[in-house]
């Protein structure tokens, strides 16, 4: 994205709304962090099953957790988009932000791989090399997402 695009975003009504009151930004941050905890909590239970921390047949539970983590991700994404709209220059040439987006995309691809290739495992006691790899990769990628998210402020120019 070019700097003119960032400047255009800064002039949008959404940007003006985010900055229109002193309570909006802290409220968005609070929602962003609480939904992050829900996202990590639900993903941890799924990933711990994948790596063999426990071996229970729990198809319906995993379905519930996937829906919960998707809902939490949507809330995170929307609040994150509002941060971006409200202070877009902070994200211009910000390597922490760029890395965070890459890690989110990789985590999404990892989740799709799980969905396509491994979702049948939830109805068995089986733990495979692939499931262990997907589980650990998910934990690693989401930890990276959190770390990069916190680094954005420090890498802003």
């Amino acid at each position: 994205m070019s700097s003119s695009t960032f400047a255009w975003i800064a002039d949008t009504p959404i940007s003006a709304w985010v900055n229109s009151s002193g309570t909006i930004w802290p409220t968005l941050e609070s929602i962003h962090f609480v939904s992050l905890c829900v996202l990590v909590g639900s993903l941890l239970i799924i990933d711990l099953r994948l790596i063999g921390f426990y071996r229970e047949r729990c198809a319906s539970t995993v379905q519930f957790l996937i829906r919960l983590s998707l809902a939490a991700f949507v809330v995170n994404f929307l609040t994150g988009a509002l941060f971006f709209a409200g202070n877009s220059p902070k994200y211009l040439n910000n390597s922490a932000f760029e890395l965070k987006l890459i890690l989110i995309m990789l985590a999404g691809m990892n989740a799709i791989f799980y969905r396509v290739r491994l979702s049948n495992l939830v109805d068995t006691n089986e733990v495979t090399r692939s499931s262990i790899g997907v589980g650990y990769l998910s934990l690693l990628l989401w930890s990276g997402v959190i770390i990069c998210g916190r680094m954005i402020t420090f890498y802003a120019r």
Partner: protein
Amino acid sequence: MSFLAYLEASAFSEWLLISMLGFPTLIALHSVGMAVAVGLSLMVTLQLNHILTGLSAQLIPKFLSIAVWGFALNLITGIALFVSRGQEYITSTIFLVKMLLVIVSALILFWLRRHLLRMKLATDKLVSNGVARGMSVVFAATWVGAVISGRLIAYLSDLY
């Protein structure tokens, strides 16, 4: 206050404030610890209150043990961050509210884990235990309150 001033003047505190990576790394790890501790605590609350079903109740103490590790990371990094700005934080009402909520949450976390382990992991007893369910709701609320007050420190410290 003189002890806090001594901590702020320490070599570690100085390194933390001037190094490029010290403060950001600690705050990032602080968030990872928070997400693990609070996230799993919320999932355990859902499980104890029959919203998250299908998993053995015997897993709850195991999940809480991982939450304890998350809390340990959160605590260690939190203390390290406090060293650099102790005098400012200790006079901030919102920081003290956060600390109170964290202490209540952590005490319930440890109590719940011990309580559930002591029940000899009888699945039916665990999920129907009213005290454990009630306490889990309290610690879900205090954890969420701690996360929110933690976010508000940056905005309200000057006011309260």
